[in-house]
């Protein structure tokens, strides 16, 4: 394992020390392991809280700040946070208007956030939740754990965060978050496995000429293994999988994110974006906004995810609204 770390057990904590040093405008509570916006709590403002396992940086701590999250709860690497963290975050950000949990649909995340919601409720904090499950590589079914939450999480956090910043109430913020999730679909491809500090070796072996298709963001194998193909074909198959879920139709606007999984250079992401943009144009979809970069990652995995979100004027207005966080920043 080749990583800039001191000890596998200390990675999350020591990275938070660095985050705190780099961003004096964030409050990093090492004891509770939460990252809180400096101004929180703000009277009357809904507190937006997200969290999940670490290893997806900049998500979530990199999205804490004006116009986005009020707090992030980083768990151990790929391990959802514990209820205590989430309750501590709720107490830190609740300004009387309640909090909204943004939860990626994983068994562990769902259960820990649910337990926290009950505990926060016991403390008199109103808790609403948004469940993100945008990954169309996984079939949706009430008999299974359902779809995973991946790249759309950032869109939910940005857009719901903007509405919360405007002063909307918790129910409205949560409803909007849910609407963004429903308007979104994602699909990811990995060229390599990633290595968690604790495991010390890659989660799977992938031959030089193969790729994993339909991976999540936790280093797990994908839905299937295929021959490596040129970027154009990868863009095509990824977009086909997404459009089959009908997040957007011809004539509509979309927000498109070409996201790196951690070890893929930007030059490749731009190249992919060029392919995706061309294909969407042919499909009659207008890309109203886009992001190209590493936003929702999977440690040192080489790979990419594509997220497409149907956009309407309200979503675009909120997408464009000011945001000032370590990883997303515009309009201020």
């Amino acid at each position, binding site marked *: 394992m080749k990583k800039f770390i001191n000890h596998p057990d200390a990675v999350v904590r020591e990275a938070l020390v660095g985050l705190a040093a780099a961003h004096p405008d964030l409050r990093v509570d090492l004891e509770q392991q939460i990252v809180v916006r400096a101004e929180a709590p703000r009277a009357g403002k809904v507190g937006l809280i997200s969290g999940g*396992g670490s290893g997806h940086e900049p998500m979530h701590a990199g999205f804490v700040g004006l116009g986005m999250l009020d707090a992030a709860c980083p*768990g*151990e*690497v*790929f*391990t*959802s*946070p*514990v*209820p*205590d963290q989430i309750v501590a975050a709720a107490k830190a950000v609740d300004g009387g208007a309640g909090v909204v949990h943004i939860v990626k649909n*994983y*068994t*562990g995340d769902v*259960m*820990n956030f649910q*337990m926290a919601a009950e505990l926060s409720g016991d403390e008199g904090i109103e808790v609403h939740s948004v469940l993100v499950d945008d990954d169309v*590589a*996984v*079939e949706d079914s009430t*008999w*299974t*754990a359902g779809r*995973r939450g991946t790249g759309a999480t950032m869109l939910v956090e940005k857009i719901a965060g903007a509405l919360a910043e405007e002063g909307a109430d918790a129910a409205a913020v949560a409803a909007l978050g849910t609407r963004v999730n429903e308007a979104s679909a994602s699909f990811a491809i990995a060229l390599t496995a990633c290595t*968690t500090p*604790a*495991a010390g070796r890659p*989660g*799977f072996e992938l031959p030089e000429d193969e790729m994993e298709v339909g991976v*999540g963001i*936790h*280093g*797990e*194998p994908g*839905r*299937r293994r295929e021959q490596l193909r040129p970027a154009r074909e990868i863009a095509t198959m990824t977009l086909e999988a997404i459009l089959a879920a009908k997040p957007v139709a011809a004539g509509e606007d979309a927000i498109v994110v070409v996201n790196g999984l951690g070890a893929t250079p930007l030059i490749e992401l731009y190249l992919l974006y060029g392919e995706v943009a061309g294909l969407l144009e042919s499909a009659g979809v207008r890309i109203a906004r886009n992001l190209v970069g590493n936003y929702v990652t999977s440690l040192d995995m080489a790979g990419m995810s594509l997220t497409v979100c149907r956009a309407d004027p309200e979503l675009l207005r909120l997408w464009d609204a000011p945001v000032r966080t370590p990883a997303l920043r515009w309009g201020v």
Partner: protein
Amino acid sequence: MDVALARAWLDAAADALAARTEELTSLDAAIGDSDHGVNMNRGFGAVRTALAGASPAGPGAVFTLAGTTLVSKVGGASGPLYGSAFRALGKALPEGAEVDAAAFGAGLRAGLDALVKLGGAAPGDKTIVDAYAPAVDAYDAALREHGGDGDGGLAAAARAAAGAAAEGMRATVPLQARKGRASYLGERSIGHQDPGATSTWLIFQALADAAAT
């Protein structure tokens, strides 16, 4: 079952999970996210620490503390699931310094019920339940068959439970996962032993070992 046995069980479980951390993580690497061993080791290590600093009056208090500690230290899927199970076990036990084997068995079943209520998994979904449910059934059956007087009865029932857990664990290999992270792999989850069922076996085996001595 008294406080000493309750402590001895959790201690033995912590030892076993520490010794098998890598193995559990490898199983999780195949169909999950490579953290189950680390999660369980962190959790049961924390339980050991918590118990070292506490003087619970009875086994119920021991398990409640253990469960609460697991919930607040593990995270992931296994933290809430095992945490809720141990809390339910603790709360189900009658007050007092000692509980009999039947009450302990009822407590184990209360733990299973809590875990199923929280996680929604059914037998065959390739989860903890696949080892835990047969273990509790075997425990009850052994008590019914051989009687539950004294720790001897509990020891025999625990042995039966551990055996059934092992069988349940091995039976997860051919299953396709329908719950938890492994379900994302669809058919590719077939052919791998479930990590959570494996840690459940280790925990029941630790119970059998502690009860035997």
